[in-house]
Every structure is written in structure tokens, then in C-alpha cells.
């Protein structure tokens, strides 16, 4: 037993405060209003620290973009604007459902709150699914941070050399490179890597589904059932995001391309391959991807944190914790979620829409 609880019991002997018997009111607060205000100020201050946490990255972005604008101009064309825009829409929609959920909580509509939270969780998972595809594809194209970066021009040279000189030394070199990649194209390789992830996700879906089915029947296991449900939704959402991205990419590859275009598209991203006049590759192009992975990676970690928080809200909602005078937690997680959304709203144009 902890001290606070013990002393509270002790003080109850002569306490006239009947409110203190309300389990929803912590012992050191006088009223629900005070408790709510405290939490609200706390979450706003926490969001301030989050903004400053990201500010280091935005500061770095500003410094580097002003010093090396050509790097950003060149490298941002490798990011898939459509996928980025899709993710933006998904996150914006999740912000809507979150705000709607807060409203439901305020009005005491538990069922509505549950639906909204589940939708938000699913959207977050879809976002991560799309992001997994993007990361995997970047990795297979060698578009990684400065230390691991491989120039796409290098691929291009290989690709051009391959059909031109079948027997020359360059061709051998190209063949070695191709052998490294295996017989699969890069897109196939991306799909292949993702298939590991989706296999794991399928296993998770099946297990979580079984757990959900088993626990939902047992009255004492409501928390476990809800957690299993949250895992199920998250895995399903990620699956959806991943498959949607793969499908979209298939579609992009299917526009009756010439052989040369196929060759190009397999070695460098399709959009870059289609360009007629190419921007010359600047030195330090990898720095852009350092920025890209740091910023979006940190953002993705925040998405995962938000998913955990939302799952916690779902568990509490199922237990009927929230009432019209006690909905602070929903409100606070909602504010956090809006901030994570807002950061993406900045990241999307800063990284994807440079032209």
C-alpha cells in the first residue's frame, strides 16, 4: 500500500470532505474542476516540450536547407508525394475522429466515444503501414541517411551500361551489382521484405483475434479482451496501409512502360526515371535522407506512443471510466494526437513538396 493512500484513509477519520470518496478525484485535489484544469495545463506544457523537442530537427532542417538548397531540391523528388498526401489525409481524418471522440466523452456517449477511438487507432495504424512501405522502398533504393546513402546516379550508370556493353568490363560490374540484388527487381524486393512484416502481422491478427474471441466471453477478462482488440485493429490497419501502398505502386508500374523505363524504374524510383531533364546530383544528397529519416522516424515513434495512449483510453472507456464530469484523459490524449498530426502537417510540405 502506498503512503498517499494510507494517509488518505487516515485523514478520512475526521475529514468532512465527502468528495474524497469519489474514486475519480485524486486525494490532493479539492474539486473535479481543479483536477481537470491541472491536467489541462499539464498537457499543454507537455506539448510545449514536444514542440521544442522537434524544434531541434526543424532548426537543423532550416540551417541545412539555407546552406544547401540544391540538396533538398534534388533529393526530395525521390519521396512519393501521393503516399505522403494519402498519409496526410489519413492523419487529418484521425484528428477529426479524435475531436469527435472528445465531444462524445463530454456528452457521456460511451458508444460513440468507443467508435471514434477505434477509428483513430486504425488510422494511426494505416499511417504506419504506408510509412513501412516508404521506408522499405527507400532502403532498397539505397536512399538512406548520409552514412549509408548510395547515389541513384550510380544505379543509373549500371542500368545504362547493362544493355550497351554486354561483354565489357562495365557490364560485368553491372552484372555483379545485379547479382547482388538477386534476380528480383527492386520493387519485388521491397514487396519481399514487406512480406516478412505482413506475415508477422497475419500471425498477430490471428492470435489477437483468438485472444479477443476467448476473453470477450469471460466477464472478468474485459481488459485483456480490449487489449487484444486494440492489437487486432492496429495490426489490421498496418496491413491495410501496406497493401494499399503496394497496390498503388503496382498501378504506377503498370502503365505500359518501355523496356528502358522498366530498367530505369527498377533501379531508381519511378518518378525520377520518368524525368526528362535531371537535376544534377549535388554532394551531400544523403543529408536530406538523414533529415527525412530523423524527422519522420521521430514522428513515427510519437504515432506509436499515441496508439498506446489511445488503446489505454479504449480500455478505460470499455470499463466506463469516463463521465460527463470526468473526461480529462480523453481530452488530453486528444490534444497530444492533434499535435502529432500538426507536426506531420509541417513535415509533409517541408519534405515532400519541395520544387
Amino acid at each position, binding site marked *: 500500500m502506498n503512503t498517499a493512500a494510507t494517509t488518505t484513509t487516515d485523514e478520512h477519520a475526521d475529514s468532512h470532505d465527502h468528495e474524497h470518496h469519489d474514486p475519480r478525484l485524486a486525494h490532493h485535489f479539492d474539486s473535479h474542476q*481543479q483536477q481537470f484544469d*491541472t491536467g489541462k495545463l*499539464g498537457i499543454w506544457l507537455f506539448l510545449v*516540450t514536444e514542440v521544442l*523537442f522537434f524544434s531541434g*530537427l526543424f532548426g537543423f532542417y532550416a540551417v541545412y536547407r539555407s546552406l544547401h538548397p540544391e540538396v533538398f531540391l534534388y533529393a526530395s523528388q525521390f519521396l512519393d508525394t501521393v503516399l505522403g498526401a494519402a498519409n496526410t489525409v489519413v492523419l487529418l481524418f484521425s484528428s477529426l475522429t479524435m475531436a469527435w471522440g472528445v465531444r462524445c466523452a463530454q456528452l457521456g456517449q460511451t458508444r460513440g466515444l468507443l467508435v471514434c477511438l477505434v477509428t483513430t487507432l486504425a488510422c494511426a495504424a494505416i499511417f504506419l503501414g504506408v510509412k513501412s512501405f516508404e521506408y522499405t522502398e527507400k532502403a532498397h533504393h539505397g536512399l538512406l541517411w548520409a552514412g549509408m546513402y548510395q547515389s541513384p546516379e550510380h544505379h543509373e550508370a549500371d542500368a545504362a551500361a547493362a544493355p550497351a556493353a554486354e561483354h565489357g568490363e562495365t557490364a560485368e560490374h553491372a552484372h555483379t551489382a545485379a547479382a547482388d540484388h538477386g534476380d528480383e527487381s527492386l520493387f519485388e524486393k521491397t514487396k519481399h521484405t514487406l512480406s516478412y512484416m505482413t506475415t508477422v502481422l497475419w500471425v498477430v491478427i490471428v492470435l489477437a483475434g483468438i485472444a479477443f474471441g476467448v476473453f470477450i466471453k469471460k466477464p472478468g477478462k474485459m481488459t485483456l479482451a480490449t487489449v487484444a482488440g486494440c492489437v487486432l485493429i492496429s495490426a489490421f490497419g498496418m496491413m491495410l496501409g501496406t497493401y494499399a501502398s503496394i497496390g498503388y505502386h503496382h498501378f504506377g508500374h503498370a502503365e505500359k512502360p518501355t523496356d528502358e523505363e522498366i530498367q530505369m524504374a527498377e533501379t531508381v524510383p519511378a518518378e525520377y526515371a520518368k524525368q526528362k531533364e535531371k537535376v544534377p546530383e549535388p554532394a551531400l544528397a544523403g543529408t536530406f535522407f538523414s533529415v527525412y529519416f530523423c524527422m519522420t522516424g521521430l514522428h513515427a515513434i510519437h504515432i506509436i506512443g499515441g496508439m498506446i495512449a489511445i488503446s489505454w483510453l479504449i480500455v478505460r472507456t470499455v470499463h466506463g471510466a469516463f463521465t460527463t464530469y470526468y473526461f480529462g484523459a480523453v481530452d488530453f490524449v486528444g490534444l497530444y494526437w492533434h499535435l502529432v498530426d500538426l507536426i506531420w502537417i509541417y513535415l509533409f510540405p517541408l519534405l515532400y513538396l519541395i520544387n
Partner: protein
Amino acid sequence: MATVVDSSNPKSNFPIQYRELNYLNCSKGWKSWFFTLDHKRIGIMYLIGVTTSFFLGGLFAMLLRTELLSPSRILMGADSYNQMFTLHGAIMTFLVIIPGVPAAIGNIILPIMLGAKDVAFPRMNLGSFYLWMFGAFFFLAAIVLGGLDTGWTFYTPYSITTSTAVITALMGVFILGFSSIFTGLNFIVTIHTMRPPGMTWFKMPLFLWALYATALIQILATPVLGITGLLLIVERAFHIGIFDPALGGDPVLFQHFFWFYSHPAVYVMILPAMGVVSEVIAVHSRKHIFGYRFIAYSSIAIAAFGFLVWGHHMFVSGQSKVVAVVFSAITFSVSIPSAIKVFNWLTTMYKGSIHFTTAMCYGLSFIFIFTIGGLTGLFLATLATDVHLHDTYFVVAHFHYVMMGSSLVGLFAAVHHWWPKISGRMFNEYWGRIACLGVFMGFNLTFFPQFLLGTRGMPRRYYTYLPEFQNLHILSTMGAYLLGISSTLMVATLIYSIYHGKKAPANPWGGASLEWQCSSPPPGNNFDHPPLAGDPYVMESVVYNEEIGGYVPAECQGDNTGSVTASGDKEV
């Protein structure tokens, strides 16, 4: 254990504040401490942790000073020396001074000063302590895993290339940063939402103003250190080319990021100590604080200026001349709010009835040391002299005068001022004052020679030196030994008092702020209902009671004569 007052006894007809059941004895067992949500117990755990780290960092300092007795090898080689000063700096900064006054003393005192039952987020408070422990663990791990030799500033590119445990130490810094953020967040919210009736912003004790200003810095600056540390970890692990010039990164950018936190962090260290001194000087001079609003505003002003001066650490790093001039000018302006505080403390003492208690002695030491530390800062803020003095012992002496001499002496003052409240026991004033004299003399003997060394060109962080510097180095080392012995004596005096000290009355010094209204030590919940707060500096509202050995509210003086002491013990 003290006898519990029988409630049927008419003599114990005291309000709840004076009951015998206190936060120290209301529950037992290790779980009641390690899982406690009580701000006072968390504060005690912080205090123990900070003291332990202080002696660890101090041990490193002793070893360093011993090595510097002679230009040649005495104890360790040059590499060990590099690791020693890095760990001394890192431990003292991140584990001792930053959490010292706010997390340890602030945690215990802030809610009681506010008449609140606890801080706003007790669980987060406990979490912050465990983060501190976790961060400290990473530091220890760094010592085991090959040490750390970058200096506490982790400057790139050396921190990217060195083979020592930079990542482990940075993880420690990152985690400690979050500990600090949570403490600050808790304090701001608590002060905003949990003030008692009657306590307007300008009726808050100045210690709360100082903690508020500190918390603002903790919240606004620490996240930047967090991301900087994280980026450096990623840079070392994955080579992202942000700070590494070999990959096109910018090492000076790291310095900007680092000092954007670490300069405000200097004010995280000094501001709470200033708040302590504001309390100590007023209470022990038995006089209303002079210039309340000026002291309050100057805390906020220092916090605000603190964010705009980081460039003065980089005058020789090749930043533009215009920027350097601007940073220099703003740095000069920090001296204005600092001087306002010093003048107000001096004026508070003027015509006061000064009691030379141990806490007051530390308070006076603070003013003396801080004045020297502050004024020598102006030498370094001046561009031309800084080029000469940069990276010499002058800088070392300057920041030790401010960070060690002022922040830690402020912490010592706080511990002695509130020790009766925290432990419920009176320490031995005689030995307390001897220790204070030793700390004061030892400190000045250690660091004043370093000003001289610095102006004569002794560079900082060097393992060896020219033979003509040896006399001053020996003086400095002797001072360090005296400082070490005196701090040990101070802690011994305090620990002795826990077992053999007199029971402390509720208000031994005659403070008028709320924490002196509840018993020593306070009950688990501090106050049943928020007490009515008045002006915290009207010293006439309490009068000395011979029998109790402490002060009682003026209106209660008649009632309590011939009764038990405020804490219920029989008088010795």
C-alpha cells in the same frame, strides 16, 4: 520513536498540523518508500541520491586536484585524467546541481509552502525520480564501459570519433533531461492551480517564484538538449552526417544546440539557490524582504535573458562578429537582474536583527561568492578579454564560483534552513557553523588561485603545466581537501542530528510562510484543508516562545505557555 500524543489529553488539543503522526513514520517498509507518491518522501530519496552523487563527483575532484599537485604523474595517466574531469563535470552537472535544489528541496518544500497536499501529478513525480535513478545508472554504466573523455560538453567531432562510452553517457543525459522536464512541469502546474486561498502571485514566497522561473527553463530548454543528445547518438551509431564534418555535417551547429540548453541550464542551477537565499536572508534577519516585486521579476528576467546568451560560449568558435557583439551585450544585461537580487538581499539585512545561524552563514557565503562569480562573468562577456581568457582556468574558476560556490552553497543553505522541517530534528549549530566556515574558506582557497592561474595562461583540462604554476596549483589542491573535509563534516553533523538531535519545533527560525505552520516533520497530507495564506514575510506575525524553543503565531502565544512543544515532545 517519539511518543504519540494521546488525543484525550487536553494538552494535545492541537489542530491536525501539530499531530504526532508524520510523513516519516505514518507507514513502514521499503515499499512505502519506493512506491510512495508522497512528495516529501520522493524529495528525501532525491536528497539521498544527490548527496551520494555529490560525494562521487567530489571524489573525482579530489583525485584530479591531487594529480595536479605536480606537473608530472602522481596518480593517473593523461587518459585517465581526461576521463576523470569529464565524469566529475557530467556527474556534478546532471546528477547533483540540476536536480539539487529543485528536485530534492523543491519537492519537499514547494507543496507545503503552497499549503497543498501534494504536487499536481504525484505519479509523474515518482516517475521523475526513477528516471533520475535510471539516468544515474547509465552514467555508472558509462564509467564501467570504458569511461568518457569528451568533457561534459560532448563537443563534436571528437565525441563521434572517441572510443569511450559516449552513447551510454548520452542516454543517461537524455533520460535525466526527462526527469528534469517532469519536475519542472509538475512545479509550474502546481503553482498555477494549487495555490491556497489568499495567496496571489505576489504573495507567494520568493522561493516559489525562483522555482517557477527555474521550471520555465527546464521545460523550454531541456527538450532541445534531449533532441541534441539523441541526434548525437544517432550520428555516432548510424553516421547521419548532421554533426560529423567528414559527412558534411556542422560541428558548430552542435555547439549552438548544446548551449541553447546548457546556458539556460546554468540558470536552472543558480535560480533556485537564489530563491533559497531570498528566504534565508529574510527569515534569519527577522525582517520583511526588501524589494519583493523586484526579486520576483528579476527571477523571470534571468530566465528570459538566459535563453538569449548561449553564443557567449562560442566567441572563439568562428561565429559572425555581429552575432558575437549581440550575445556579448545581452550577456552584460543578465548582470542587471542578478545585481538587483544582491542589492535587495543586502538591503533586507540592513537594520535587521541578524541571527548567525548555520543557514544564514551559508546565505552570506552565497552572496559573497556569487558576487565574485557574477563579476568575473563580465570579464568573460567582454569579447576582447574573452579571447585571452577563453578555455583557461579563469573560466574554470568563474563557473565554479557560480555553479559550485553559489548553487551548492545555496543547496547547503536550503538543507540547513529546512532540515528541522524535513527531519524533525535540530542539528548542532556549532558544528554546522564550523563546517560552513570550512566550506567557505576551502572553496575560496580552491578557486581563487585558479583566477590567477587563468589570467597567467594556464589552459583548462590540461594534464600537466609549466613549473611556475605549481605553487598556485598546490594552494588550490589544499583548498579542495579542506572543502572535501568540511562537506563531509556538514553531512556528518546532519546525519548525527537524526539520531541525537533535539526534537525540532514547528517553527525554529521564525519563518512566516506556510511550511512553518505545519509540524516538523509534517503529517503525511501536510494540511487537511488549504490554510489561509498571508504575506509570507511579515516576521512580526510569529513570536519566540522560550519553552517550545521556537516561534509560534503571535495570537497563539498566550494559549501555549506551559504546554508541550509544538511537536509534542517534552522540553530538554
